[in-house]
Structures are given as structure tokens and as C-alpha cells.
């Protein structure tokens, strides 16, 4: 069991003929993902390694029955690409592209509400259900099928968490990179709902970072609605205020969004917080032990 994607998910790539699009389409196909098509306006009728290219997402959906997409188009066109996918009824949209203007995302977010689509990202590594389906840029081989749901605002820190959970003998149900931007399509809370309802997920690891209040909101939600063991880590305890730490969303401004506040909120919700990034796997084990004890 898993959330959002599984072995039956049919995936297209928007921007398939670009360098990154082609490279990662191959990577996902080689992992075992059903890559059924791609979209590049004006290049319909061509193919990439035998994977058919279409002019529009609607054409791709009509021809292949695709229900998921990964987006690699350049940032100025990403909002348009997401809206096209929503319009074509794609269920799971992973926008990998970095650098999307935030006001574009305000508009996209409004359209997403009430649609049947789930947007992961933008500025994210994508999502993976180990052994079944990989949509994105993460190295597939570090993942192990298992029962831990991992979600994160950061890409490589997710890999670190995956690695550590694999090393302590726990595999992953589905790992989701939410993205590092101020507005992303899916929040921690959205995924807590899915993980809580998923029979294949037995514990949840949440990796946050400084900036915004998404972690605090998630903590409040967990306290009320999540019965499964939860562990967390917050990156950026040592980050100075007013400096954007790479991600557009990772900035402490006006005294808000500090790691200290976030850790306090998480601990108050009974979540096991890893003090050190090296301690994520162990924190998860502690959360599981506490839960069963």
C-alpha cells in the first residue's frame, strides 16, 4: 500500500524533450515507472526512446490514459503547465521546476482548490513509492519498500532521511518532496491525512525547515487527528534571520519561522523531534517504541 502513486500509475513528462526531462524520464522508466508519454508543444508525433510525445496534455491523456505527470518546463511556463495538467484531469502532478514566481503560484493554488488534482511542488524532487513508481529526480536505489511515510520540504535532506530509515531496517511506503517554495501545492497536513488513512503506512517522518508556519500547523493537526507514530526534524536551527537559505521559503522574517518555535510546537504535539540531522532514523525508532510501549 502507498499514497498517491503505485505500480498502476501511468505517468507522462511535460517538457520531455528538454535535457532534464529526457534524462529523468529515462531514470523513472528504468526504475520501473510506467512512463506512457510526454508533452512538448510543437513536437507531437515524435518520440523519446519509443515514448510518444504529444502537443498537449489532453492529447496525451486521451491516447494513454495517463493519471500523473512530472513537470520539467522552465520556470516562466510552469504555472501554465500545471494549469494544463489540472484542466486535463491529471490526478497527481509533480512540478520539479525551481524558480517559479510566487504570485503565479497564488493563481495556481486557487485553481487547484476544488479540482481533482494534487500538486506536489514546485521546486521539489518529486515522489516515490519504492519498488513501484518513481516520479521525479531522487536516486531510486536508496529506497526500500516498507512502512514509513516520509515527507519533506527539502530534496537531499529527504535522501538522508530515507537512507537512515533504510539503515535502521525500516523501509518507506511513499516519500514525498513537498518543495522549498513559499507556496506549494500540497502541505504536510494534506499528506498526514493520506498517510493516516493508508494501511501500508505505519509511521510518519516529517522534515521541515525554517520559514513560514507549515510545521506549526501540521503539529496542531497531528495532536488532534494522527494516531500513528510521528518523528520530525527541522533544518536551519543555526540560520541567521533575514537571509534566504537557498529555498525561497526558507527565511526567518519578522521574528517568525524560527526552528525553535517549530520544535516547540512539534514536541507539544507529542512528536519525536530529532535534535541532529544524523538522528532522524533513531528518532523514528523512538517514536515507534513510544507508540507501542
Amino acid at each position, binding site marked *: 500500500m502507498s499514497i498517491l502513486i503505485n505500480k498502476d500509475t501511468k505517468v507522462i513528462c511535460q517538457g520531455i524533450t528538454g535535457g*532534464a526531462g529526457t534524462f529523468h524520464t529515462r531514470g523513472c522508466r528504468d526504475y520501473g515507472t510506467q512512463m506512457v508519454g510526454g508533452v512538448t508543444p510543437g513536437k507531437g508525433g515524435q518520440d523519446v526512446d519509443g515514448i510518444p510525445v504529444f502537443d498537449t496534455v489532453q492529447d496525451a491523456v486521451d491516447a494513454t490514459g495517463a493519471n500523473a505527470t512530472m513537470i520539467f518546463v522552465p*520556470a*516562466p511556463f510552469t504555472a501554465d503547465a500545471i494549469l494544463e495538467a489540472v484542466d486535463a484531469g491529471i490526478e497527481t502532478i509533480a512540478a520539479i521546476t525551481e*524558480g*517559479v*514566481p*510566487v*504570485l503565479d*503560484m*497564488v*493563481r495556481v*493554488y*486557487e485553481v487547484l482548490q476544488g479540482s481533482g488534482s494534487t500538486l506536489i511542488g514546485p521546486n521539489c*524532487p518529486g515522489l516515490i513509492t519504492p519498488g513501484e513508481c518513481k516520479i521525479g*529526480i*531522487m*536516486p531510486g536505489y*536508496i529506497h526500500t519498500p516498507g512502512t514509513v511515510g516520509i515527507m*519533506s*520540504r*527539502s*530534496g*537531499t*535532506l*529527504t*535522501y*538522508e532521511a530515507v*537512507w537512515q530509515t533504510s539503515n535502521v531496517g525500516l523501509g518507506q511506503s511513499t516519500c514525498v518532496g513537498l518543495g*522549498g517554495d*513559499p*507556496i506549494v501545492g500540497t502541505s504536510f497536513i494534506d499528506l498526514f491525512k493520506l498517510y493516516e488513512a493508508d494501511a501500508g503506512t505505519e509511521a510518519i517522518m516529517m*522534515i521541515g*525547515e*525554517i520559514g*513560514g*508556519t*507549515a510545521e506549526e*500547523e501540521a503539529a496542531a493537526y497531528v495532536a488532534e487527528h494522527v494516531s500513528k507514530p510521528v518523528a520530525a*526534524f527541522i*533544518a*536551519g*536551527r*543555526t*540560520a*541567521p534571520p*533575514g*537571509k*534566504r*537559505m*537557498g*529555498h*525561497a*521559503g*526558507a527565511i526567518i522574517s*519578522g*521574528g517568525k519561522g524560527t526552528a525553535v518555535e517549530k520544535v516547540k510546537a512539534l514536541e507539544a504535539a507529542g512528536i519525536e523531534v530529532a*535534535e*541532529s*540531522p*544524523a538522528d532522524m532514523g533513531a528518532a523514528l525508532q523512538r517514536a515507534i517504541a513510544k507508540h507501542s510501549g
Partner: protein
Amino acid sequence: MKIHEFQAKQLFADAGVAVLENRVATTPEDAAKAFDELGSAIAVVKAQIHAGGRGKGTTKENPDQHGVQLVRSAEEAREVAQQLLGKTLVTIQTGEEGKVVNQVLVEQGCDIARELYLGIVLDRASKMPVLMCSTEGGMEIEKVAEETPEPIFKEHFDPHFGLQGYQVRKLCSKLGIVGASVRSADRFMRTLCRLYVNLDCSLAEINPLVVTGAGELIALDAKISFDSNAMYRQKAVAEYRDLSEEEPTEIRAGEAGLSYIKLEGNIACLVNGAGLAMATMDIIKLHGGEPANFLDVGGGADKSQVTEAFRILLSDPNVKAVLVNIFGGIARCSTIAEAIVAASKEVGFEVPLVVRLEGTEVEEGRRILEESDVEIITATDLTDAATKVCAAIGA
């Protein structure tokens, strides 16, 4: 991206947001001339730097000279400009090193009846821009939020439709803006919200926003910053970037496609991914060390970019050790290893170098390092890396 107050006021004036008559001066003579041109009995000379707290801040050269000063004659404007231009202003936001004042703004005086606060930011929780107002103008808004019972009034607005008239009326009612001033507030607030959207701002703050004796709303100060991701479609705004306000190494890193922020410590770190880079800084601190920087080389970095990253790190004289922490995803460990070897040949590592590699092409990366003659302290995981780098400098 940040801009100066005088640039923000130019954008305001262009858009129809009320500001006072002003001139920019880069010499004391220009400041005197500006005073005469403005033709008012009093004027204000304001140092232009990318930091707040200028009124309370003082120059390093003269602890009695504040960054904002009222003047009553052309001669006085010249003297104040003389005391500010080319001098280093230290405010609560600049840090001890302060910032050099390259230009001053000379602005008309004004008859102030009330001082309010107004700011527009993106509300990440509701995923919409929000206009915030308070009756406590002139104070730092964070302090208002924490220390005074005065509420902050908020109205969210859709970027497409803009702030609506009823929202202005609601705010006016709460702020005690009445009579003819409501019309002035309507024009001011709605125009500013439109500017925020049209120019892809990430912050627009007016503190104080004044109501004059005649009941007009005027932006006495102006602070705007912009969404860097949107600068490709804001070419005119991008021209306002002032490189002299930025850390030279950060500019250099930006040109190489690296995300770098200089910090105060002595352990340089080179990491792929923003989250992992922050986490690496955190674990250094947990083990008693101090990070010298934040550096995300990104996923697609090639050998020359990573080599440039090492040059930047090693150019910081505070650096006593380097920690490389790579979890290869798109980034390949072999690329990083090649860059380490290249950087060693070119710039040389005179400080201890701790390397932790994991992920894509890790075997190849380790082999490259082993076969080179670069002196490396190898670490197996995060904790090991942090322990070793801190031990290397005796922290």
C-alpha cells in the same frame, strides 16, 4: 531583491502612490541644491542604505551623526550630507560592520497629523497577499505585534481582482480614518496593492504612513523587496539592483549558479541541496563548531562550478577547516571528487578537509579521491563528519 528608499519612492510616484517631493544627492553640493529646489522651510536628509533603523543608527566616523536628520537651510543640508556621504552607517540591521552611504535622499518636510503602519506581504498560510495596518506607525511592526495591545488589521486580496473598496472602508473604520481621508486612503491602498502585484513584490512596507494635517495619506518611508524568481519579467526593476549593497562573494557565487551566504564562523561547508546545507550547519554547531557559510552547490553543478565554490570558500580568511557533505541525487559524487582534486591543484587546501560522500556514483567518487594525493579526512556519516571537522580545528 531589495532596493533603496529613493528607488521605491520613484516607483510609488510612477504608480500614483502619494510621496513627498524629493531629490537624490550624491554630493553635499547636490544636497544643498536639492534643498533650494524643494523650496520648503524644512527638509529631511536620509541616508540611503539597504537596511532599516537609519534614524537611530549613527555613523562610525561620528557617533553623533544619525542616518536621518531634519534640516532648515541649504547650508545645513550640505553639512549633513557631508557627514553622511561616503561614511559608514551602523544600524540595528546592518551588523557591526555597517554600510557605506553612497547617496542621500533630500525630502520636503510635511505636516504630520498621524503616523500609521502599512505593509503588504504574502501570507503563506492563506496563500494570498495580505495588507496589514496598525495605528502604531514608526515603530517596528514586530514590536507592535509582541509588545503592545494595539491590533494589526489585515485584509487579504486576490492578486487578480486587487484590494476592494469595502476592504479599504473596513480598514479605515478600524484605523479611525474618517471623512475626506477615506477617499485618499482608498486611492493609496488600492494603488499600492496593485503595484505589489504588478511588480512581483515580496514585501511593501510603509512605516510610517502619515496622515497630513490636510487629511492626505502619504508614504513617509518606503521599503520594497521583490521576488527574485520573477525578475525575468521585471526588467526595469532589475535595473535597480545595487551590487555595492551585497556581499561580493555572494554576488560571485550567484554568477556561478551557487547559493552562498557568508556567516561568521570558521568551518566552511560545501553541500548539495538547501535543506541538507542547513542541516550541515546545524550539526557543526551541535558539535561545538561554527559554520563559516551556507553553500548549496545545487543538483546540476558541473566540475567548474564546484571548483569555483571551493575558491569562494577558501577566499574567506576566517576559514580553518572545510567540510564537504554530499548526498548525490542528481549531483554525482564523482563530479564533486573531481572538483576537489582540481581545487586542490589550483588553490591548494591549507586547512583540514573532511569529506563525506554518499549517493549517486559514490564508489567512483571515493576511488577518485583515494587515487589522488589530496589529503582528506574521510567521514562515513553526518555525525562522523561533524565530529572530525570540529576535532580538526580543536573546537
